[in-house]
């Protein structure tokens, strides 16, 4: 690694960042260690592993991991690696492994928490260091696992803030998503989309609260929706959710952007919340919530009108349409998005129908909206490979953001506060080598020295 902390620090200015942060594979490798190696990263939802042995594979940065439900009912997260010769123990995807993991190569077996269970022909190991109790013979667990209202996060570092502290103000978005269910619980349902983007992972995070792009990038989409609505003489839900991007600049200027520590944040809703109480689906939903929580609380829950929320390093939950776009970096110029849809337990079926329609029409690989986002992300990636200049600007409304006890709030909805906030977090992580990893490296060095 040739990058000193000094060199890294010089890549981020108050109002701009050096394009290398998006294009340099060495920086990407360092991000996998210092950001994805430390932060709490969303692994999956508990409802994806309902029964003992159910597993869901995913990635924490560049690490293949398995989320699995063990016999004691607890959810564990282990690296997808057999300690024998390193084979991935389960194939990518979801499944049920039964009572234990069995490696497909030489049949070493492991309990559901990854600990060593057995292996064939033990007599061949007599007189060797083989010891089932030695962690070297077990699948390794990720350092810390915790769940917030069913959302499972893991951290590769044994140190650092606990999950609740890490999430800070953005936990309120997860709370709101859950409270939209009369029993306070959600589950992943209806299947997930997976979309590949030819751009750096940070580009997508920045776009999530980029209100200046909507009218421009999505012109073909909202114009098409408006033309169709004009021809029909009405604007049904399917068209309304495409129409939102076409609001005039004055609309976007009035929105509020919240920035929290660790790069998180949210932006206010772009669909009229009062329209929601006018339609029968929202009215039924409101009735069910009123019964469960009382009218005031129900009004407060449905009135919390958030558009994209950002959990930096994990992705973007969308409370109103019950979605989580999980953002997984693949390489410096490839990012995989997994779009999960949630059912609100106990809510009317029509509420889930609407979430399904939203997922199909706005975030599927075949939507009329996302292809244009994906296109401009790719153009950023390619443009930043040219010699046409070195700095990427983040200066809109610089110096006007207001401090709050847990972060910042914009004075104008077109502020580039969210990008500045993300890079403040980025810098903090990147200048701080993960203590656990650092210690592991030191121990390895020491082992080598004594060997």
């Amino acid at each position, binding site marked *: 690694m040739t990058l000193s902390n000094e060199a890294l620090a010089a890549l981020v200015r108050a109002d701009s960042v050096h394009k290398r942060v998006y294009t340099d594979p060495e920086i990407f490798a360092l991000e996998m260690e210092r950001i994805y190696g430390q932060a709490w990263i969303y692994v999956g939802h508990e409802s994806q592993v309902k029964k003992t042995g159910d597993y869901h594979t995913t990635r924490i940065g560049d690490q293949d991991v398995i989320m699995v439900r063990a016999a004691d009912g607890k959810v564990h997260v282990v690296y997808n690696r057999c300690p024998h010769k390193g084979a991935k123990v389960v194939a990518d995807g979801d499944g049920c492994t039964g009572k234990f993991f069995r490696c497909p190569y030489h049949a070493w077996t492991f309990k559901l928490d990854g600990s060593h269970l057995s292996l064939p022909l033990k007599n061949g190991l007599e007189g060797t260091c083989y010891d089932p109790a030695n962690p070297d013979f077990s699948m390794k667990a990720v350092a810390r696992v915790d769940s917030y209202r069913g959302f499972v996060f893991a951290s590769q570092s044994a140190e650092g803030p606990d999950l609740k502290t890490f999430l800070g103000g953005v936990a309120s978005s997860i709370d709101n998503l859950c409270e939209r269910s009369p029993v306070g619980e959600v589950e992943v349902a*209806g299947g997930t989309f997976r979309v*590949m983007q030819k751009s750096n992972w940070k580009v997508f995070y920045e776009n999530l609260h980029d209100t200046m792009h909507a009218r421009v990038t999505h012109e*073909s989409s909202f114009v*098409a929706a408006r033309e169709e609505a004009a021809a029909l003489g009405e604007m049904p839900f399917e068209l309304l959710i495409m129409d939102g991007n076409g609001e005039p600049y004055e609309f976007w200027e009035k929105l509020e952007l919240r920035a929290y520590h660790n790069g998180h944040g949210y932006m206010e809703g772009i669909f009229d919340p009062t329209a929601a109480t006018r339609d029968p689906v929202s009215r039924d939903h409101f009735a069910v919530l009123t019964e469960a929580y009382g009218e005031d609380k129900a009004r407060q829950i449905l009135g919390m009108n958030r558009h994209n929320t950002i959990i930096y390093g994990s992705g973007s939950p969308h409370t109103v349409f019950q979605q989580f776009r999980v953002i997984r970096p693949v390489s410096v110029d490839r990012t995989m998005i997994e779009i999960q*849809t949630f059912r609100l337990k106990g809510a009317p079926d029509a509420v889930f129908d609407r979430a399904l329609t939203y997922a199909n029409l706005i975030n599927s*690989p075949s939507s009329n909206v996302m292809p244009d986002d994906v296109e401009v992300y790719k153009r950023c990636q390619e443009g930043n490979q040219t010699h046409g200049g070195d700095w990427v600007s983040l200066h809109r409304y610089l110096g006007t953001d207001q401090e709050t006890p847990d972060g910042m709030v914009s004075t104008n909805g077109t502020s580039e506060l969210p990008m500045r906030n993300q890079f403040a977090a980025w810098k903090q992580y990147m200048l701080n080598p993960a203590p656990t990893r650092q210690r592991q490296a030191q121990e390895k060095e020491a082992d080598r020295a004594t060997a």
Partner: protein
Amino acid sequence: MQLLDRTFDVSTAPVSGASLSAEAIRRVEQFLFHEARLLDERRFAEWLALWTEDGRYWVPRFHDQANPFEQISLFWEDKMLREVRVRRVENARNWSQQPLTRSAHLVGNITIEGLDAAGHLIVRSTLQLTEWRIDQRQLAGAVFHKLAATEDGSWKIVLKRVNLVNCDDVFANLEVFI
């Protein structure tokens, strides 16, 4: 919402057989070839006119997906949404259609499956689709058409279901009709 109308019959399993003359079968085949050609030549207005008022275009997200109501789909579109898609891809500021998607459909193995409960003809074919936009891409699958006979002896599409061999894959964009 029309899209959620669960009374729409998405099943492609025939409830009775259909006996067609060799000439009638030939006309069905020609209809499918013509439909594919309209897409390849981006003659979208003519393609839209091939559908019944109520016709649905469906590309499931899962193998053997039972319906588009409980699970997500890659495409689940009625007349309105097909028209919106055409309007969008034909808009000059469709950044992700620069350059345009070019395609060649190869339609084969056409078999007449039978009739559905409402008497629509169910036709199965296999599809090889080569698509180019910056990169070349291959898509393949089995296609089910449900066709309603028209008075002039031709057909209109009631349902087109495309079972992609890789419906559960990671995708980049699927912007134009398959």
